């Protein structure tokens, strides 16, 4: 059963994607790495920032092998700069 996830882009990543969010459908068992692969295909300029990209699912940071579930919200953003 495929799953749908929402992808949110933050900071200057929004400038690269020209949108604050998107959705994608993935096969059951898909991981954060699968989302990144899909996003990088759609937005090659975001792929250039892959080494510094941070990923959260919900409000927690997650590694590439984290398995996603229906309705998850995946956030992609550059290094944080608070203060």
């Amino acid at each position, binding site marked *: 059963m495929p799953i749908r996830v929402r992808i949110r882009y933050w900071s200057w990543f929004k400038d690269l994607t020209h949108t604050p969010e998107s959705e994608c459908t993935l096969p059951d068992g898909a991981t954060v790495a699968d989302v990144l692969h899909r996003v990088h295909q759609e937005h090659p300029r975001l792929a250039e920032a892959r080494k510094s990209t941070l990923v*959260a699912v919900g*409000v927690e940071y997650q590694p590439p092998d984290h398995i996603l579930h229906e309705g998850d919200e995946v*956030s992609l953003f*550059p290094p944080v700069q608070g203060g």
Partner: protein
Amino acid sequence: MHRHLELTAAPIPLGDLAASRVESSTSGAVITFLGVVRGSEAGQPIAALDYEAFEPMARHQFEKLFQTMETRWPSLESTRLVHRYGIVPAGQPSLWVEVTAPHRGDAFAACQWLIDEMKRVVPIWKRTVPTP
């Protein structure tokens, strides 16, 4: 440990925060830190910084940092933090932190650690707003 966290678009009310500190007969150290927007960035004058926060995650990550502080420095009595988002003009504070403890060593160390970790894990970003 008493905790207070505020993410706000409004100017940080320094006087109110100072007045609302919970007084304790055991707190011998009260460390406060202000992060202030500089008037230049990379050698160029700027008017302001425009802060963006992923607020639910920022709150969650701050709470996790507070939890770690409680474990690492059990003597801490209070940690209060206010971070602004939106446009913060040069010269105004974007961050206010207060840490209280019986002794200054733990208070200084915990305050420094909190700010360092915030800059590593709390999803807040800034963009420069050039001078007109």
